[in-house]
């Protein structure tokens, strides 16, 4: 069996402008694109739609070919062995979750007197998402809040979540992941929040991409640490 260390590298990148559908039907594509646009809306800055999030999600759902980019980013790793078996099983679940999710969006939209989710106005779409999530549309962060939180795992997989939180996670991923995966077109997501990410993944492999300029340039340990005297030279 091929070791993970030797997974084949299949060259090729994903075009964020493509409207070729590998997994979604036309209706599913339009519905998820509309929902993504409510999750990261377009305002003075681009949103999920402009970033090509729908292409990102479609490619991810289509199978396991686009799970892992190669290190340098010029293609994708062909998973093999036990990892591939587990990933395929999860992919099948994920496909079912999305197929059911689109139906659910249309069903709720229908209850609100709409023909479909995608044809509803932004406000009504928000109402559908509120119903689907079971809570009101999130309010802005409050500086007076005293809310407390509890620890959770590092790493954020999409295992075992209901449809709506899964979709929200995937929209974030498609907006902010390296463009090699088909979203974050031209790095728009990064520009919106001011993240000066690498031009391409290869640049992170040999020091070409550096954040050295964001470290403090002028400092003196004995000023930062009262009472500390640097020993010797």
């Amino acid at each position, binding site marked *: *069996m091929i*070791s*993970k*260390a030797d997974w084949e590298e299949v060259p090729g990148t994903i075009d964020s402008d493509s409207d070729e559908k590998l997994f979604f039907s036309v209706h599913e594509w339009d519905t998820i694109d509309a929902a993504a646009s409510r*999750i*990261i809306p377009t305002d003075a800055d681009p949103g999920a739609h402009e970033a090509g999030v729908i292409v990102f999600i479609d490619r991810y759902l289509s199978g396991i070919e686009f799970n*892992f*980019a190669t*290190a*340098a*980013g010029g293609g994708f790793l062909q998973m093999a062995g*036990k*990892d591939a078996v*587990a990933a395929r099983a*999860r992919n099948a679940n994920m496909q079912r979750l999305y197929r059911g999710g689109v139906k659910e969006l249309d069903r709720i939209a229908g209850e609100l007197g709409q023909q479909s989710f995608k044809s509803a106005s932004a406000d009504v779409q928000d109402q559908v998402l509120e119903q689907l999530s079971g809570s009101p*549309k*999130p*309010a*802005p*962060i409050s500086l007076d809040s005293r809310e*407390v*939180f*509890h*620890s*959770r*795992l*590092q*790493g*954020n*997989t*999409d*295992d075992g979540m209901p449809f709506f939180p899964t979709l929200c996670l995937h*929209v974030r991923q498609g*907006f*902010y992941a390296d463009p*090699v995966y088909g979203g974050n077109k031209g790095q728009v*997501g*990064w520009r*919106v*929040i*001011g*993240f000066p990410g*690498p031009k391409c*993944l290869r640049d*992170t492999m040999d*020091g070409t*991409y550096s*954040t*050295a300029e*964001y*470290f*403090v340039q002028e*400092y003196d*340990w004995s000023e*930062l*640490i*009262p*009472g*500390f005297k640097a*020993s010797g030279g």
Partner: protein
Amino acid sequence: MKRKMEPVDVVIVGLGAGGGPAAMVLSQAGYKVVGFDKGPWLRPAEHYSGDELKYQNRSYLWPDVDLMPRTVRSDDQSVAEIFNFSPVPSNVGGGTSHMAGWTPRPRESDFIFHSLHGDLAGANLADWPIRYEHLEPYLTKVEWTYGISGLAGADKGAAFRSKDYPSEPLPPTRFGKKFYEGASALGINAFPLPMSHLTEGNALGRPAVNRSSFWNQYGDPTETRSSVTTTFIPLALATGNFEVRADSFVRHVKVDRQGRATGVVYVDNDGVEIEQDARVVILALGAIESARLMLLSKSARFPDGLANDSGVVGKNATFHEYLFAVGLFDNERDEPLNGWTGNYQSGGSMHFYETDESRGHIGGGIIATTQTGQPINMILPGRPTWGQAMKDADRSYFSHAMKIGFILQDMPQETNRVDLDPTVKDAWGLPVARITNRPHANDLAMSRWQIDKNMEILQAAGATRTIPVYLERFTGNACHQQGTVRMGIDPEKSVLNEWGQAHGVDNLFVLDGAGFPTALGVNPTLTIMANSWRCSDYIAQTHLRGRADRLELPNTGEVRRQEPK
């Protein structure tokens, strides 16, 4: 019939922080050593890069929960549920391939917790069978072989050290500088925590070119990060006495009729079962998996699991939950903090390390200001999950938030343990590790006190809002594992002696964090490596030469409590 390989001197199971130094020491001493890892041997320069989605969301290195599940419950009455508890990468290098890399030294008090505090109700405190002074030379060796950056003398309560660091710390990040400001305002001794990476001009002559800030949870394609695969393993291979067998899952330790270990049975990548005999068997699978393999290795001589006459295997597990407080700053008024920059932590403190009972708990841990992370997974507890509010929160706080983390020194309890799950199996068809864990009252009190203190530091640094992340239940999110195969002097209350050698099975050693009788207050990996080196010296110089030796302990009453001045 099973295939059999040519016998060797030493078998090491698990090539992470514990297995790496053992491989180097024993192969350099001239012994034939085979090291097994169930995962692949990834090549940093070829396989690693700064791909957030791949590393943090799609588990390229995190263990696959469907292949290697664990189960968790809070007490014996509950049914355990599948959960990726304390996940650590499965590949040659283990956790050292993507760990953040805080590598502070422990202090004297870590080794004498029972002498200092006596019996704490509901806990199972113990002294270690070694003292700081036994480990000190090995801490230095690891710092100079593995490669650690630090600033000697900056931690005012630090224990004795025999040598300076081989490399200077990185410059502070902008959020690091804020942390120093907040700490100084409150009179707290902050300092650049020792880190397992090197900086330019280090005494080891290694390159230090990675400033990409893709660090915690990422593999490093350069040699800037110190990891087992770029240090101990190449040094071991250079002797010609060491062989790595990757993608090889060890499922059983074999014993003869007297109960001495004779070798291991493993399954290779094609599913073939193979036997490997050896004179010495070393376990370093990580404390959860080392205990599990011992419990799986039942025999006529050891019906309850290998070397488990005491019944202690799996018990007293400690996990160091990682807790923190986040501070939000004003994106119009304040300079950007760029919480996504740096090699994870950028300044910490051990000011609250030693017991001060006026705080309402015993013990204490290390704190540090750490990255809030890259765009997808930026840590902002309570971030709106969708809509305009989410987009606004990302825009306002991506570069205007910081966090101060805390490593909880949890108390060992006999009932907090690892055993075999009665129903759930892994991809090799074997029962998985089941974790039973409930926080001790001291754990809850300590974490609350410290997180509140971290919020005070954030406020002193100018945060407009502080957000606490407290302990509710253990998730194993620090990925630190200790205590499941205790070292001790008494064979009825511990499994290993002071050399990590099983009481009663003289050629079986456990050299990961499993041997730690109490959780350190600091991150464990430096100590795991130093202790593995120390015990491997014993195996090479004494045990394999047919001798035995016991370690003399100093008078415990003499150890001075360290307070920051």
